[in-house]
């Protein structure tokens, strides 16, 4: 116990690679802009899009996706934006075939497309949506949850009792691309989120086959304390510094000055 391993022990040789290591050449996931970041997205793909309401949405990626014009997309996102912002921009262009969300109010075009049958909608309890994304990223193919038992959400799903309480089996969600917004990030893909803009972004970043992150501030790796990173870069494939964030507020609510 507590012995000091010294030369002669051949494991000591390990990590000598370090002395020849060019730190500046390690891992570079940085791409130029949103256009390059979403390269490879094609019609018919499934995308995860981070954000809660308009808070923490990947504004740059969504704009680039409008320009790209890919359609027949399945979008997994807690909400569907508003008419002229967020995923609403993709809805306007009829690029979305199906939404997988927990709440889709506040969007007239969405309502029109849904009621006319142009748009498929799969509504999922918010906690199950979050956990299904995490499960997808964590290699957990399915789990039991009490949420939705006895409701139409449970139709066709296995029911099992644990401790006398009914649960339903929910499966993992995956996406061809996850589009994620963070506050700060480095070229390794390490991410720090800000305030409630965190929301679904970390779990969706875990579940994308290709995870694209736009950050407000792309920083040098040694600027981030390893202890404070919200999501390790191992989950991220591409990262870039976004531009011109509007960060629109959906329900600006204030209190009077006393």
């Amino acid at each position, binding site marked *: 116990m507590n012995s000091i391993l010294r030369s002669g022990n051949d494991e000591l040789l390990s990590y000598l690679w370090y002395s020849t290591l060019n730190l500046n050449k390690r891992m570079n996931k940085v791409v130029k802009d949103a256009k390059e970041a979403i390269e490879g997205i094609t019609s018919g793909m499934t995308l995860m899009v981070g954000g809660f*309401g308009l808070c923490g949405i990947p504004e740059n990626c969504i704009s680039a996706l409008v320009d790209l014009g890919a359609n027949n997309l399945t979008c997994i996102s807690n909400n569907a934006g508003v008419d002229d912002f967020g995923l609403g921009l993709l809805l306007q262009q009829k690029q979305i075939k199906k939404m997988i*969300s927990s*709440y889709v109010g506040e969007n007239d075009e969405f309502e029109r497309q849904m009621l006319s049958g142009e748009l498929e909608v799969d509504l999922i309890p918010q906690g199950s949506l979050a*956990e299904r994304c995490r499960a997808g990223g964590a290699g957990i193919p399915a789990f039991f949850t009490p949420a939705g038992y006895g409701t139409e959400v449970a139709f066709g799903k296995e029911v099992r009792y644990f401790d006398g309480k009914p649960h339903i089996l929910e499966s993992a969600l995956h996406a061809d691309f996850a589009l994620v917004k963070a506050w700060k990030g480095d070229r390794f893909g390490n991410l720090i989120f800000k305030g*409630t*803009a965190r929301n679904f972004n970390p779990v969706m970043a875990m579940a994308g086959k290709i995870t694209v992150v736009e950050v407000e501030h792309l920083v040098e790796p040694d600027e981030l304390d390893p202890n404070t990173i919200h999501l390790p870069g191992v989950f991220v494939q591409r990262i870039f510094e976004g531009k011109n964030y509007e*960060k629109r*507020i959906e329900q600006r609510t*204030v209190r009077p000055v006393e």
Partner: protein
Amino acid sequence: MLDRNGIAQRIAQELQDGWYVNLGIGIPTLVANYIPKGISVEFQSENGLLGMGPFPFDGEEDADLINAGKQTVTMLPGGSIFDSSLSFAMIRGKHVQLTVLGAMEVADNGDIANWKIPGKMVKGMGGAMDLVASADNIIVAMAHTNKRGQSKLLRQCTLPLTGVKCVKKVVTNMAVMDITPDGFKLLERAPGVSVEDIKNATEGRLVVEGEIPEMQL
């Protein structure tokens, strides 16, 4: 009869010191205004924060700090931020002691319907299904009857369910009731409301035992 604030005020009496509480949109939000003296609770917002503070002053709004109703908020010292999966981990794992939410219908076995009206635009359940399926303590805040005067306290819900056998207590503009195996057990009357009034406005089984006191607000 109570108004919206009265309902909130009565529910606030249920709060216990040290509880973490999730308040839904509408009347439940008002509960925060009536926390009894000497009691301290923390508010959880399921989009990912604990220690939610008051709305910001004009000009101090932060687009990166909203509540589950998408309203700009502030945070109190001791608060914390987390992602959606951890947020529902604390809800599903029963670490949030009380959920207060509105409803369209409640059945006398504790079933609740509050997310969908067939034929109308469906906006989604948001976090409601997770909340009602998880918390040990679910209080519904709502009017006793709907706009057409029909009871919202039913033998069986007619609308698609949000959760089954989960509501523990209902506080309406007319009464406070616990859900028991025998149905709604009447605990208190709103000021100026008679037991007879409540009986007439309740379609589900109503249990009335002994004298029913008037609420003390």
